[in-house]
């Protein structure tokens, strides 16, 4: 498993990285944690001319609060996300989903930004970020811009990141006091999700005041289950309410068929797993 030859640059600031990416031309690739890119290179499914390694850019790591948002550096590792106090307090859905990613080795190498920019529809972190109305901050030669999650994920392995742009941080509105659950369904512990459901609810006065549901691997991009969310609004958090809302989980989805599961089975799973995710999140 030997990759094709490539050039390698390791900038130490975002500014240098943007320059490096522009200089390297359109066949360059950004290397984050390498957990998806390196296998692709080794199997020669891709042969970029240059790798721009973000591993030595300290400003891309870490979590901070800013204007009611959590701001998570793109190079923050899964392990750091899982352990981070701010994430657990204000975006527990993301921490819970990140816990389910692969194994400890991968979680110590893989990064949040890398996962989102890779945009594998079976990746577990896309749906939580979408469900919580996250925004991706991109840096390019013209400066920075912010892209909401529902515009960021374009297709399988395709995002709104331009050829000369980098994903530098992820901004997630604080969901303080919400209860959440990520229900992952996979074949073996280290496999990708067949289907995953990210659910968070805010219960106020015995009613579901707000609800967020995102689906993993139910289309070419993560899917927001708006109909489920609507059905939950104002409902008492009961098993019956959750079950009836979950029946609408397949609406607006367009799952594919592969060796792991056919589309009809995925739609069925989405319903069952949404019910389970909501039941756990709502404590019913």
């Amino acid at each position: 498993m030997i990759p094709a030859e490539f050039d390698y640059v390791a900038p130490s600031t975002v500014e240098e990285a943007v320059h490096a990416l522009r200089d390297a031309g359109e066949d360059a690739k950004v290397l984050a944690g390498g957990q998806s890119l390196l296998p692709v290179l080794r199997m020669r499914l891709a042969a970029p001319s240059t790798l721009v390694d973000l591993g030595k850019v300290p400003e891309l790591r870490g979590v901070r609060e800013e204007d009611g948002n959590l701001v998570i550096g793109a190079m923050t590792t899964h392990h750091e996300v899982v352990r981070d106090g701010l994430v657990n307090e204000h975006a527990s859905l993301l921490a819970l989903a990140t816990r389910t990613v692969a194994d400890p080795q991968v979680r110590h190498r893989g990064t949040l930004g890398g996962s989102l920019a890779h945009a594998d529809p079976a990746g577990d972190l896309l749906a939580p970020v979408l469900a919580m109305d996250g925004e991706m901050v991109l840096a390019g030669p013209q400066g920075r811009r912010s892209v909401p999650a529902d515009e960021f994920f374009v297709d399988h392995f395709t995002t709104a990141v331009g050829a000369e742009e980098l994903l530098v941080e992820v901004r997630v509105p604080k969901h303080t006091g919400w209860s959440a659950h990520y229900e992952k369904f996979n074949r073996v512990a280290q496999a990708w999700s067949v289907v995953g459901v990210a659910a968070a609810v805010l219960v106020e006065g015995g009613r579901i005041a707000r609800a967020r549901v995102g689906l993993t691997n139910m289309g070419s991009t993560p899917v927001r289950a708006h109909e489920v969310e609507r059905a939950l609004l104002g409902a008492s958090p009961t098993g019956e309410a959750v079950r009836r809302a979950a029946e609408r989980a397949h609406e607006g989805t367009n799952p594919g068929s592969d060796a792991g599961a056919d589309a009809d089975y995925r739609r069925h799973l989405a319903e069952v797993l949404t019910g389970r995710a909501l039941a756990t999140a709502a404590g019913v």
Partner: protein
Amino acid sequence: MTATPVSPSEPEIGRARRRKEDARLVTGRTRWTDNMSLPGMVHLAVLRSPVAHARISAVDTTEARRMPGVHEVVTGADLAERQGSMPCAWPVTPDMKTPYAPALAVEEVHFAGEAVAMVAARSAAEARDALDAIDVDYEDREVVLDIEAAARDDSPLVHEELGTNRSATWTFDSAEAGTGGDVEQALRDAEIRLDRTFRQQRLIPAFMEPRSVLVDPTGEQYTVWSSTQVPHILRTMMAMTLGVGEHKIRVIAPDVGGGFGGKLQVTPEEMLTFLMAERLGRPVKWTESRSETMVSGHHGRDQVQRLSLAARADGTVTGLKVDLLADMGAYLRLIAPGIPVLGALMFNAIYKFDSYRFTCTNVFTTKTPTDAYRGAGRPEATFAIERMMDELAAELDMDPLEVRRRNWINHDEFPFDTVAGLTYDSGNYEAATDRAVEMFGYQQLRDEQLRRRQRGDTVQLGIGVSTFTEMCGLAPSRVFGSLSYGAGGWEHSQVRVLPTGKVEVVTGTSPHGQGHVTAWSQLVADRLGVPFEDVEVLHGDTQSSPRGLDTYGSRSLAVGGVAAVRAADRVIDKARSIAAHLLECSEQDLDFSAGRFSVRGTDRGMELTEVALAAFTAHDLPEGVEPNLDAEVSHDPENFSFPHGTHLCAAEVDTETGRVRIRSYVCVDDVGTVVNPLVVEGQVHGGLAQGIAQALYEEAVHDEDGTLTTATLADYLVPSAVDLPEFHTDRTETEATSNPIGVKGVGEAGTIASTPAVVNAVVDALRPYGVTDVRMPCSPQRVWRALSGARASSATAAESGGGLGSVDPDQAFPTGGDR
């Protein structure tokens, strides 16, 4: 289980010694083939066909030859006169059809992954880069993928020149063999007749260490290092295939990281590395990537099994008819045609059938060749018969354990001549089953199952039974001969007592994870009365271990270990004559115990160490005794050994998602005398993991073009420890009578027994829904479809009297009896 503290007075046999091998292996002081590097060595990379069936119309290597670091580029056409045809040592029938099997494809490729060209370069990276510069034109031909379609006369052909895709049909009939009655008569007379079809999916051995070969042509002999289970077989086969004198080839299997049958092979890449080294006159190394392993290392299983069972209404079985199709893949590899034949003698299992008929047709497809995979024929047989026994129990509404008790061989009926013509020497199925039932809490789980059924729980509980036996210690050469195998099954050992009293044991077995160094040390230390630490075991090099038939088929201990024990006994005999001479007594007056000869009735005696020194100095030896304390034995047993056991699995099936979770797994194995309980426990755990993996996870899947879509370990689902339950194991010990130490073999037991236990549990959970089978692996989707299909069929049956709705036959068998 933990290693027990060592007390010098305890015998070595039965002691849970930590393995001698492990300190070195776990600290990285390893000698894998790929670790080797020789002066002047170049690296080999192999170009593989991306298509399953095509004529090679052109190969252009011009650009590849100009690439940096490239020494040589070779195509099949370049080797056509030199490479011979890959060997198949098991012509199961006289008229077996065997295709030409070049190491490097010459005119046509027959599976995706077949080698078509090779590059030798200064570095592995340069060799790999040059592969991309080779241009091959393929003219596609029709692919042949479905085994049943391939067996029909109207199928496109894999090998045009053979005129058929059917390689051979092998039959055993108890009426013809005189070992039982006529099965057709039994089926006609049956009060209960069951017909079932099972599918053994294609599996990939997935050993941990990818294969690697290094050939050094610069000495007087060619030295071949290979990650192989079979250095001795490789040496002979390489000599025969390439026309090189056997005495000019030395094969070394250094540290080898697993095999599971996947390295019981003589591979095209071994030949290619040799031929490149011969061509260049310098050492050449090839090491594969995991993706190459998956497409080009041989696969396993892949059978369609049709069974008909005749029984009386009281549950007594009377006849069994087995009709198999076995997928050979594109070529006949080393022992592939014989794999189903190894199962042929085991379908009757532990039960007293009166009549039995077995037929297997070996079929070619345009897929990776198949061959031995852990259990090799016997897991297939055990799966089918244990599924049938559960089906019979369901048909009669009997407890599956009761059906088995009614039919198995009782412990007082051994030795027992089976309807398949074998003689089982010993066993105690009652004892193993009683112990397993007790550990499992069988009745409590049945009670829970009933409660879940009654309340319509979305998670149902199923209990699966597997009371298996296997034939192990693959040896008796005369039996191999009767089955047309191209070699014997004996094993060789030499025991040498050095002048200082330390001991070398040379063995012809070739361990690749089994712990022979530890176990053979225990065996010989006990026999000679020397410390465990004073024994060294030499193996895996045709120069130091010149004779042997290597390691597979749970044969090493029962054949090779016994050879070592017998050689040690010969050493003692020789030492006795020297000791008697020096002590001036008769041999009959000498007792040998704990490493010392004592003159009976006196305090005079001699340590074995002293005898060894006396043999070495040779100053005063008896007439006709040569000056050494060495002895060797080639051991060829009279019979196989027959480990058995009872495995019980409780599985929870989530009827909403189809997910199966093993709730509890108990196995009580009887592998005869246990030399090292820790090693046995390890073998059982690993075996269970692989057997459960067949039931629930693993499957090699091809698309409609014949491309393997599960060619990475992200797609081919090998479970890890977190996916598996805690195993509750115990043993009964019924000594084998077929060898002097009572051992039977344990390498394959867990794999053979566990697959049907798990699938029986899954089906048992779903029977109330009308499900009678779920095709392996029992993935969540397949289980869910089996349930949906059953629900749909009962719904349509009520309305229209037939139809199975939209059940996709590729995803799950529809429910019901015959398929």
